Protein backbone atom coordinates (compact mmCIF):
# COMPACT_ATOMS: atom_id res chain seq x y z
CA UNK A 1 0.00 0.00 0.00
CA UNK A 2 1.24 3.41 -0.94
CA UNK A 3 0.48 6.36 1.23
CA UNK A 4 1.38 9.81 0.07
CA UNK A 5 1.23 12.53 2.71
CA UNK A 6 -0.02 14.92 0.10
CA UNK A 7 -3.03 12.75 -0.69
CA UNK A 8 -3.71 11.77 2.91
CA UNK A 9 -3.90 15.46 3.77
CA UNK A 10 -6.33 15.87 0.90
CA UNK A 11 -8.55 13.10 2.20
CA UNK A 12 -8.62 14.62 5.66
CA UNK A 13 -9.18 18.24 4.71
CA UNK A 14 -12.54 19.93 4.35
CA UNK A 15 -14.39 17.58 6.68
CA UNK A 16 -16.28 20.27 8.57
CA UNK A 17 -19.69 21.41 7.43
CA UNK A 18 -21.25 24.62 8.58
CA UNK A 19 -24.88 25.56 9.15
CA UNK A 20 -25.81 29.24 9.16
CA UNK A 21 -29.08 31.14 9.23
CA UNK A 22 -29.81 33.75 6.60
CA UNK A 23 -33.33 35.22 6.69
CA UNK A 24 -35.67 32.32 5.91
CA UNK A 25 -32.79 30.26 4.62
CA UNK A 26 -30.66 27.72 6.38
CA UNK A 27 -27.32 27.79 4.64
CA UNK A 28 -25.51 24.44 4.76
CA UNK A 29 -21.99 24.26 3.39
CA UNK A 30 -21.45 20.66 2.34
CA UNK A 31 -17.86 19.46 2.94
CA UNK A 32 -15.74 18.31 0.03
CA UNK A 33 -15.52 14.67 1.06
CA UNK A 34 -18.55 13.67 3.04
CA UNK A 35 -17.91 10.62 5.20
CA UNK A 36 -20.71 8.16 5.91
CA UNK A 37 -21.09 9.00 9.60
CA UNK A 38 -21.12 12.71 8.79
CA UNK A 39 -24.13 12.23 6.53
CA UNK A 40 -26.28 11.07 9.43
CA UNK A 41 -25.11 13.77 11.84
CA UNK A 42 -25.45 16.47 9.18
CA UNK A 43 -29.05 15.46 8.49
CA UNK A 44 -29.91 15.51 12.18
CA UNK A 45 -28.25 18.90 12.64
CA UNK A 46 -30.13 20.39 9.71
CA UNK A 47 -33.50 19.21 10.98
CA UNK A 48 -32.67 20.54 14.46
CA UNK A 49 -31.78 23.95 13.00
CA UNK A 50 -34.93 24.08 10.86
CA UNK A 51 -36.99 23.77 14.06
CA UNK A 52 -34.78 26.26 15.89
CA UNK A 53 -35.08 29.04 13.28
CA UNK A 54 -38.39 28.05 11.65
CA UNK A 55 -36.52 28.05 8.37
CA UNK A 56 -38.53 27.68 5.19
CA UNK A 57 -35.62 26.81 2.90
CA UNK A 58 -32.50 24.74 3.29
CA UNK A 59 -29.79 25.77 0.87
CA UNK A 60 -27.20 23.05 0.32
CA UNK A 61 -24.10 24.76 -0.99
CA UNK A 62 -21.93 22.35 -2.99
CA UNK A 63 -19.25 24.77 -4.13
CA UNK A 64 -16.65 22.83 -2.11
CA UNK A 65 -17.56 19.50 -3.69
CA UNK A 66 -15.57 18.33 -6.70
CA UNK A 67 -16.36 14.60 -6.71
CA UNK A 68 -19.98 13.49 -6.60
CA UNK A 69 -20.66 9.76 -6.85
CA UNK A 70 -24.03 8.00 -6.78
CA UNK A 71 -23.85 7.75 -2.99
CA UNK A 72 -23.59 11.52 -2.87
CA UNK A 73 -26.63 11.82 -5.11
CA UNK A 74 -28.51 9.61 -2.70
CA UNK A 75 -27.45 11.88 0.16
CA UNK A 76 -28.89 14.96 -1.55
CA UNK A 77 -32.11 13.11 -2.30
CA UNK A 78 -32.52 11.79 1.23
CA UNK A 79 -31.78 15.23 2.66
CA UNK A 80 -34.41 16.76 0.38
CA UNK A 81 -36.99 14.17 1.43
CA UNK A 82 -36.24 14.56 5.10
CA UNK A 83 -36.35 18.37 4.96
CA UNK A 84 -39.68 18.19 3.12
CA UNK A 85 -41.11 16.18 6.03
CA UNK A 86 -40.33 19.09 8.35
CA UNK A 87 -42.26 21.47 6.10
CA UNK A 88 -39.24 23.19 4.59
CA UNK A 89 -37.75 22.81 1.11
CA UNK A 90 -34.26 22.05 -0.13
CA UNK A 91 -32.50 24.18 -2.72
CA UNK A 92 -29.09 23.24 -4.04
CA UNK A 93 -26.51 25.68 -5.32
CA UNK A 94 -22.92 25.97 -6.40
CA UNK A 95 -22.60 22.63 -8.19
CA UNK A 96 -19.43 22.80 -10.26
CA UNK A 97 -19.73 22.31 -14.01
CA UNK A 98 -17.56 19.17 -14.00
CA UNK A 99 -19.67 17.72 -11.18
CA UNK A 100 -22.90 18.46 -13.04
CA UNK A 101 -21.56 16.85 -16.22
CA UNK A 102 -20.65 13.68 -14.32
CA UNK A 103 -23.98 13.57 -12.48
CA UNK A 104 -25.90 13.90 -15.72
CA UNK A 105 -23.81 11.17 -17.36
CA UNK A 106 -24.52 8.94 -14.36
CA UNK A 107 -28.23 9.67 -14.64
CA UNK A 108 -28.32 11.44 -11.26
CA UNK A 109 -30.50 14.36 -12.25
CA UNK A 110 -32.34 14.88 -8.93
CA UNK A 111 -35.61 15.66 -10.73
CA UNK A 112 -37.44 16.96 -7.69
CA UNK A 113 -34.73 19.12 -6.19
CA UNK A 114 -34.62 22.80 -7.09
CA UNK A 115 -31.23 24.23 -8.05
CA UNK A 116 -30.11 27.85 -8.15
CA UNK A 117 -26.93 29.43 -9.45
CA UNK A 118 -25.66 30.88 -6.18
CA UNK A 119 -26.52 32.40 -2.82
CA UNK A 120 -27.88 35.60 -4.42
CA UNK A 121 -30.37 33.62 -6.47
CA UNK A 122 -31.33 31.49 -3.47
CA UNK A 123 -31.98 34.58 -1.40
CA UNK A 124 -34.00 36.16 -4.19
CA UNK A 125 -36.06 33.03 -4.51
CA UNK A 126 -36.74 32.68 -0.80
CA UNK A 127 -37.78 36.34 -0.67
CA UNK A 128 -40.30 36.02 -3.49
CA UNK A 129 -41.54 32.52 -2.71
CA UNK A 130 -40.89 32.17 1.00
CA UNK A 131 -43.66 34.30 2.45
CA UNK A 132 -46.35 32.74 0.33
CA UNK A 133 -45.09 29.23 0.93
CA UNK A 134 -48.08 28.17 3.02
CA UNK A 135 -50.62 28.96 0.31
CA UNK A 136 -48.53 28.32 -2.76
CA UNK A 137 -50.77 27.04 -5.51
CA UNK A 138 -50.40 23.61 -6.98
CA UNK A 139 -49.22 24.96 -10.33
CA UNK A 140 -46.57 27.10 -8.69
CA UNK A 141 -45.36 24.12 -6.72
CA UNK A 142 -45.22 22.10 -9.88
CA UNK A 143 -43.20 24.92 -11.39
CA UNK A 144 -40.79 24.67 -8.49
CA UNK A 145 -40.83 20.94 -9.17
CA UNK A 146 -40.92 19.95 -5.54
CA UNK A 147 -43.79 17.57 -5.86
CA UNK A 148 -43.85 14.06 -7.25
CA UNK A 149 -40.86 12.33 -5.79
CA UNK A 150 -42.04 9.01 -7.22
CA UNK A 151 -39.46 9.15 -9.99
CA UNK A 152 -36.72 8.99 -7.45
CA UNK A 153 -37.00 6.35 -4.75
CA UNK A 154 -36.23 7.21 -1.21
CA UNK A 155 -33.23 5.45 0.17
CA UNK A 156 -32.01 5.52 3.70
CA UNK A 157 -28.37 6.54 3.55
Amino acid at each position, binding site marked *: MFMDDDFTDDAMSGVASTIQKLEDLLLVTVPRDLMDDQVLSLRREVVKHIRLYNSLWVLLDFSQVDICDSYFGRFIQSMANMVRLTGARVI*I*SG*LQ*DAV*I*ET*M*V*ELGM*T*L*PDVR*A*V*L*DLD*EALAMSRTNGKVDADTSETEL*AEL*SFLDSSTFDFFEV
Partner: protein
Amino acid sequence: MADLEMSKQEILDELLAAQQEITDLKAVIAAHDDSRISMNQQKMLEVAGVGMVLYKFDGTVLSIDRGALKIFDLEDVYPDPRAVQGKKMGDLMVYTGRRGRLRSIIREQGKAQNVLYDFKTVKGDLRWCLHDSYVIQHPETGEDIIQAIIRDITEQKLAEAEQERLQQEIIEAQQRAIQELSTPIIPVMDGIIVMPLVGSIDSLRAKDLLRTLLEGITHYRARVVILDVTGVSIVDTGIVNHLDKTIQAARLKGARTIVTGISDAVAETIVDLGIDWGKIQTLSNLQAGLLAALRSLGIQLVSTASNTTHSD
Protein backbone atom coordinates in the same frame (compact mmCIF):
# COMPACT_ATOMS: atom_id res chain seq x y z
CA MET B 1 80.01 -35.89 -43.00
CA ALA B 2 77.99 -37.36 -40.20
CA ASP B 3 78.41 -34.13 -38.28
CA LEU B 4 77.19 -32.29 -41.25
CA GLU B 5 74.13 -34.57 -41.55
CA MET B 6 73.40 -34.08 -37.87
CA SER B 7 73.70 -30.40 -38.08
CA LYS B 8 71.39 -30.39 -41.06
CA GLN B 9 68.82 -32.35 -39.02
CA GLU B 10 69.37 -30.02 -36.12
CA ILE B 11 68.85 -26.98 -38.30
CA LEU B 12 65.71 -28.47 -39.70
CA ASP B 13 64.40 -29.25 -36.21
CA GLU B 14 65.25 -25.80 -35.00
CA LEU B 15 63.57 -24.33 -38.03
CA LEU B 16 60.46 -26.35 -37.38
CA ALA B 17 60.52 -25.40 -33.74
CA ALA B 18 60.91 -21.79 -34.64
CA GLN B 19 58.09 -22.05 -37.12
CA GLN B 20 55.89 -23.62 -34.45
CA GLU B 21 56.82 -20.85 -32.11
CA ILE B 22 55.85 -18.26 -34.66
CA THR B 23 52.53 -20.00 -35.26
CA ASP B 24 51.89 -20.13 -31.55
CA LEU B 25 52.82 -16.52 -31.10
CA LYS B 26 50.65 -15.57 -34.05
CA ALA B 27 47.80 -17.46 -32.46
CA VAL B 28 48.39 -15.69 -29.17
CA ILE B 29 48.47 -12.34 -30.90
CA ALA B 30 45.39 -13.22 -32.92
CA ALA B 31 43.61 -14.40 -29.81
CA HIS B 32 44.57 -11.21 -28.11
CA ASP B 33 43.34 -9.17 -31.03
CA ASP B 34 40.12 -11.18 -31.13
CA SER B 35 39.43 -10.60 -27.49
CA ARG B 36 40.13 -6.93 -27.96
CA ILE B 37 37.80 -6.81 -30.89
CA SER B 38 35.08 -8.72 -29.06
CA MET B 39 35.49 -6.51 -26.03
CA ASN B 40 35.13 -3.49 -28.25
CA GLN B 41 32.13 -5.02 -29.94
CA GLN B 42 30.55 -5.69 -26.58
CA LYS B 43 31.17 -2.11 -25.53
CA MET B 44 29.83 -0.78 -28.82
CA LEU B 45 26.67 -2.83 -28.53
CA GLU B 46 26.20 -1.61 -24.97
CA VAL B 47 26.54 2.00 -26.05
CA ALA B 48 24.19 1.42 -28.99
CA GLY B 49 21.58 0.08 -26.55
CA VAL B 50 21.69 -3.48 -27.82
CA GLY B 51 21.57 -6.43 -25.46
CA MET B 52 21.24 -10.18 -25.56
CA VAL B 53 19.34 -12.55 -23.31
CA LEU B 54 19.09 -16.33 -23.39
CA TYR B 55 16.08 -17.62 -21.56
CA LYS B 56 13.76 -20.59 -21.30
CA PHE B 57 10.15 -20.63 -22.38
CA ASP B 58 9.12 -20.53 -18.73
CA GLY B 59 10.95 -17.21 -18.41
CA THR B 60 14.03 -18.46 -16.58
CA VAL B 61 17.12 -16.44 -17.56
CA LEU B 62 20.09 -18.56 -18.70
CA SER B 63 22.45 -15.75 -19.54
CA ILE B 64 22.32 -12.04 -20.01
CA ASP B 65 24.87 -9.50 -21.15
CA ARG B 66 25.66 -6.04 -19.86
CA GLY B 67 23.83 -4.42 -22.74
CA ALA B 68 20.59 -6.11 -21.76
CA LEU B 69 21.11 -5.26 -18.10
CA LYS B 70 21.53 -1.65 -19.13
CA ILE B 71 18.25 -1.75 -21.07
CA PHE B 72 16.52 -3.19 -18.01
CA ASP B 73 18.22 -0.44 -15.95
CA LEU B 74 19.61 -3.08 -13.60
CA GLU B 75 23.36 -2.41 -13.93
CA ASP B 76 23.54 -1.09 -10.38
CA VAL B 77 21.41 -3.93 -9.00
CA TYR B 78 23.46 -6.69 -10.63
CA PRO B 79 27.05 -5.53 -11.25
CA ASP B 80 27.84 -9.08 -12.38
CA PRO B 81 25.52 -10.34 -15.14
CA ARG B 82 26.06 -13.91 -13.95
CA ALA B 83 24.08 -13.13 -10.80
CA VAL B 84 20.95 -12.87 -12.95
CA GLN B 85 21.14 -16.49 -14.07
CA GLY B 86 18.17 -18.48 -12.82
CA LYS B 87 15.99 -15.41 -12.24
CA LYS B 88 12.70 -15.02 -14.10
CA MET B 89 12.22 -12.40 -16.80
CA GLY B 90 9.38 -11.08 -14.63
CA ASP B 91 11.93 -10.25 -11.90
CA LEU B 92 13.88 -8.04 -14.28
CA MET B 93 11.02 -5.95 -15.61
CA VAL B 94 7.34 -5.10 -15.17
CA TYR B 95 4.99 -6.29 -17.89
CA THR B 96 2.76 -3.55 -19.25
CA GLY B 97 0.77 -5.82 -21.50
CA ARG B 98 -0.25 -9.44 -21.33
CA ARG B 99 2.46 -11.62 -19.82
CA GLY B 100 3.99 -14.06 -22.31
CA ARG B 101 2.57 -12.29 -25.40
CA LEU B 102 6.00 -12.29 -27.05
CA ARG B 103 6.78 -15.87 -26.07
CA SER B 104 3.58 -17.14 -27.66
CA ILE B 105 4.61 -15.51 -30.95
CA ILE B 106 8.08 -17.09 -30.73
CA ARG B 107 6.63 -20.49 -29.92
CA GLU B 108 4.20 -20.35 -32.82
CA GLN B 109 6.59 -19.03 -35.46
CA GLY B 110 9.97 -20.18 -34.14
CA LYS B 111 11.12 -16.59 -34.16
CA ALA B 112 9.97 -13.02 -33.71
CA GLN B 113 11.65 -10.34 -35.74
CA ASN B 114 11.46 -6.61 -35.28
CA VAL B 115 8.74 -6.90 -32.68
CA LEU B 116 7.99 -3.68 -30.80
CA TYR B 117 7.76 -4.48 -27.13
CA ASP B 118 7.12 -2.12 -24.25
CA PHE B 119 7.66 -2.77 -20.58
CA LYS B 120 8.46 -0.93 -17.39
CA THR B 121 11.76 -1.22 -15.58
CA VAL B 122 11.51 -2.33 -11.97
CA LYS B 123 12.17 1.34 -11.15
CA GLY B 124 9.00 2.28 -13.01
CA ASP B 125 10.30 3.86 -16.23
CA LEU B 126 8.61 2.96 -19.47
CA ARG B 127 10.87 1.40 -22.13
CA TRP B 128 10.32 0.48 -25.75
CA CYS B 129 12.43 -2.20 -27.42
CA LEU B 130 12.73 -3.91 -30.76
CA HIS B 131 13.01 -7.64 -30.28
CA ASP B 132 14.68 -10.18 -32.54
CA SER B 133 14.15 -13.57 -30.99
CA TYR B 134 14.98 -17.05 -32.23
CA VAL B 135 14.43 -20.51 -30.82
CA ILE B 136 17.74 -22.36 -30.38
CA GLN B 137 18.70 -25.62 -28.70
CA HIS B 138 20.24 -25.57 -25.26
CA PRO B 139 23.87 -26.77 -25.78
CA GLU B 140 23.62 -29.23 -22.89
CA THR B 141 20.02 -30.23 -22.32
CA GLY B 142 18.89 -29.81 -25.93
CA GLU B 143 15.63 -28.17 -24.92
CA ASP B 144 14.22 -25.24 -26.91
CA ILE B 145 15.36 -21.92 -25.52
CA ILE B 146 15.01 -18.35 -26.70
CA GLN B 147 17.84 -16.15 -27.84
CA ALA B 148 16.69 -12.57 -27.82
CA ILE B 149 18.53 -9.60 -29.20
CA ILE B 150 16.91 -6.45 -27.95
CA ARG B 151 17.43 -2.89 -29.01
CA ASP B 152 16.39 0.02 -26.83
CA ILE B 153 14.42 2.57 -28.87
CA THR B 154 12.88 4.42 -25.93
CA GLU B 155 14.33 7.81 -26.78
CA GLN B 156 13.19 7.61 -30.36
CA LYS B 157 9.76 6.46 -29.22
CA LEU B 158 9.44 9.25 -26.67
CA ALA B 159 10.30 11.80 -29.32
CA GLU B 160 7.65 10.33 -31.62
CA ALA B 161 5.13 10.24 -28.79
CA GLU B 162 5.83 13.86 -27.96
CA GLN B 163 5.30 14.83 -31.56
CA GLU B 164 2.08 12.86 -31.81
CA ARG B 165 0.87 14.36 -28.56
CA LEU B 166 1.54 17.84 -29.86
CA GLN B 167 -0.31 17.02 -33.06
CA GLN B 168 -3.26 15.67 -31.10
CA GLU B 169 -3.28 18.76 -28.93
CA ILE B 170 -3.38 20.98 -31.99
CA ILE B 171 -6.22 18.93 -33.45
CA GLU B 172 -8.15 19.10 -30.16
CA ALA B 173 -7.56 22.85 -29.90
CA GLN B 174 -8.78 23.37 -33.44
CA GLN B 175 -11.86 21.28 -32.79
CA ARG B 176 -12.58 23.24 -29.65
CA ALA B 177 -12.30 26.49 -31.56
CA ILE B 178 -14.67 25.24 -34.25
CA GLN B 179 -17.12 23.99 -31.64
CA GLU B 180 -17.06 27.24 -29.73
CA LEU B 181 -17.86 29.06 -32.93
CA SER B 182 -20.65 26.68 -33.81
CA THR B 183 -22.42 26.86 -30.45
CA PRO B 184 -22.80 30.53 -29.68
CA ILE B 185 -24.54 31.84 -26.62
CA ILE B 186 -26.63 34.94 -27.15
CA PRO B 187 -27.63 36.97 -24.12
CA VAL B 188 -30.93 38.58 -25.06
CA MET B 189 -31.91 40.12 -21.74
CA ASP B 190 -30.94 40.05 -18.09
CA GLY B 191 -31.22 36.43 -17.05
CA ILE B 192 -32.15 35.07 -20.50
CA ILE B 193 -29.75 33.43 -22.93
CA VAL B 194 -30.45 31.82 -26.29
CA MET B 195 -28.46 28.91 -27.62
CA PRO B 196 -29.31 28.14 -31.23
CA LEU B 197 -28.26 24.67 -32.35
CA VAL B 198 -27.34 24.20 -35.96
CA GLY B 199 -26.38 21.12 -37.93
CA SER B 200 -25.72 17.67 -36.61
CA ILE B 201 -24.82 16.95 -33.03
CA ASP B 202 -22.41 14.13 -32.37
CA SER B 203 -21.32 13.04 -28.93
CA LEU B 204 -18.13 15.10 -29.14
CA ARG B 205 -20.03 18.27 -29.93
CA ALA B 206 -22.75 17.44 -27.43
CA LYS B 207 -20.21 17.48 -24.62
CA ASP B 208 -18.93 20.91 -25.70
CA LEU B 209 -22.47 22.13 -26.07
CA LEU B 210 -23.16 21.16 -22.47
CA ARG B 211 -19.94 22.77 -21.25
CA THR B 212 -20.52 25.96 -23.24
CA LEU B 213 -24.06 26.23 -21.88
CA LEU B 214 -22.99 25.73 -18.25
CA GLU B 215 -20.29 28.37 -18.66
CA GLY B 216 -22.81 30.67 -20.35
CA ILE B 217 -25.28 30.29 -17.48
CA THR B 218 -22.59 31.28 -14.98
CA HIS B 219 -21.26 34.12 -17.11
CA TYR B 220 -24.60 35.75 -17.89
CA ARG B 221 -26.25 34.66 -14.62
CA ALA B 222 -29.00 33.14 -16.71
CA ARG B 223 -32.21 31.92 -15.13
CA VAL B 224 -33.81 30.90 -18.38
CA VAL B 225 -32.15 29.20 -21.33
CA ILE B 226 -33.85 29.08 -24.70
CA LEU B 227 -32.55 26.11 -26.63
CA ASP B 228 -33.53 26.67 -30.24
CA VAL B 229 -33.33 23.46 -32.25
CA THR B 230 -34.87 24.83 -35.45
CA GLY B 231 -31.57 24.33 -37.24
CA VAL B 232 -31.01 20.75 -36.13
CA SER B 233 -31.22 18.73 -39.31
CA ILE B 234 -30.57 15.13 -38.38
CA VAL B 235 -32.31 13.62 -35.40
CA ASP B 236 -31.63 10.33 -33.72
CA THR B 237 -32.05 8.92 -30.26
CA GLY B 238 -28.48 9.93 -29.39
CA ILE B 239 -29.17 13.60 -30.07
CA VAL B 240 -32.36 13.61 -28.05
CA ASN B 241 -30.50 11.94 -25.19
CA HIS B 242 -27.80 14.60 -25.39
CA LEU B 243 -30.41 17.37 -25.43
CA ASP B 244 -32.03 15.82 -22.39
CA LYS B 245 -28.69 15.68 -20.55
CA THR B 246 -28.00 19.30 -21.48
CA ILE B 247 -31.37 20.41 -20.14
CA GLN B 248 -30.88 18.43 -16.90
CA ALA B 249 -27.41 19.94 -16.50
CA ALA B 250 -28.78 23.47 -16.98
CA ARG B 251 -31.41 22.71 -14.34
CA LEU B 252 -28.75 21.57 -11.84
CA LYS B 253 -26.92 24.83 -12.54
CA GLY B 254 -30.09 26.72 -11.66
CA ALA B 255 -31.52 27.60 -15.06
CA ARG B 256 -34.84 26.61 -16.61
CA THR B 257 -34.77 25.53 -20.24
CA ILE B 258 -37.35 26.35 -22.87
CA VAL B 259 -36.94 24.33 -26.05
CA THR B 260 -38.12 25.99 -29.24
CA GLY B 261 -38.41 24.95 -32.86
CA ILE B 262 -38.97 21.25 -32.31
CA SER B 263 -39.71 19.68 -35.65
CA ASP B 264 -42.19 16.84 -36.07
CA ALA B 265 -39.32 14.39 -36.44
CA VAL B 266 -37.69 15.50 -33.19
CA ALA B 267 -41.03 15.35 -31.37
CA GLU B 268 -41.58 11.82 -32.63
CA THR B 269 -38.11 10.70 -31.48
CA ILE B 270 -38.69 12.14 -28.03
CA VAL B 271 -41.98 10.31 -27.70
CA ASP B 272 -40.56 7.06 -29.05
CA LEU B 273 -37.64 7.23 -26.62
CA GLY B 274 -40.03 7.53 -23.74
CA ILE B 275 -38.24 10.62 -22.46
CA ASP B 276 -40.49 12.62 -20.19
CA TRP B 277 -40.30 16.26 -21.18
CA GLY B 278 -43.50 17.01 -19.32
CA LYS B 279 -41.72 19.50 -17.07
CA ILE B 280 -39.82 21.10 -19.92
CA GLN B 281 -41.57 23.89 -21.73
CA THR B 282 -41.52 23.37 -25.49
CA LEU B 283 -42.72 25.99 -27.91
CA SER B 284 -43.06 26.16 -31.65
CA ASN B 285 -40.69 29.03 -32.35
CA LEU B 286 -38.09 31.33 -30.87
CA GLN B 287 -40.46 34.31 -30.54
CA ALA B 288 -42.93 32.33 -28.46
CA GLY B 289 -40.01 31.03 -26.39
CA LEU B 290 -38.74 34.53 -25.73
CA LEU B 291 -42.18 35.76 -24.62
CA ALA B 292 -42.53 32.74 -22.31
CA ALA B 293 -39.06 33.38 -20.86
CA LEU B 294 -39.92 37.01 -20.16
CA ARG B 295 -43.21 36.03 -18.56
CA SER B 296 -41.50 33.53 -16.29
CA LEU B 297 -39.21 36.30 -15.05
CA GLY B 298 -42.23 38.52 -14.44
CA ILE B 299 -41.45 40.86 -17.34
CA GLN B 300 -44.22 42.00 -19.64
CA LEU B 301 -43.91 43.64 -23.02
CA VAL B 302 -46.00 46.80 -23.19
CA SER B 303 -46.43 48.75 -26.37
CA THR B 304 -45.53 52.42 -26.04
CA ALA B 305 -47.40 53.47 -29.18
CA SER B 306 -50.93 54.51 -28.17
CA ASN B 307 -52.76 53.54 -31.32
CA THR B 308 -51.31 50.10 -32.00
CA THR B 309 -52.76 47.07 -30.31
CA HIS B 310 -50.48 44.37 -29.19
CA SER B 311 -51.49 40.97 -30.40
CA ASP B 312 -50.04 37.83 -28.91
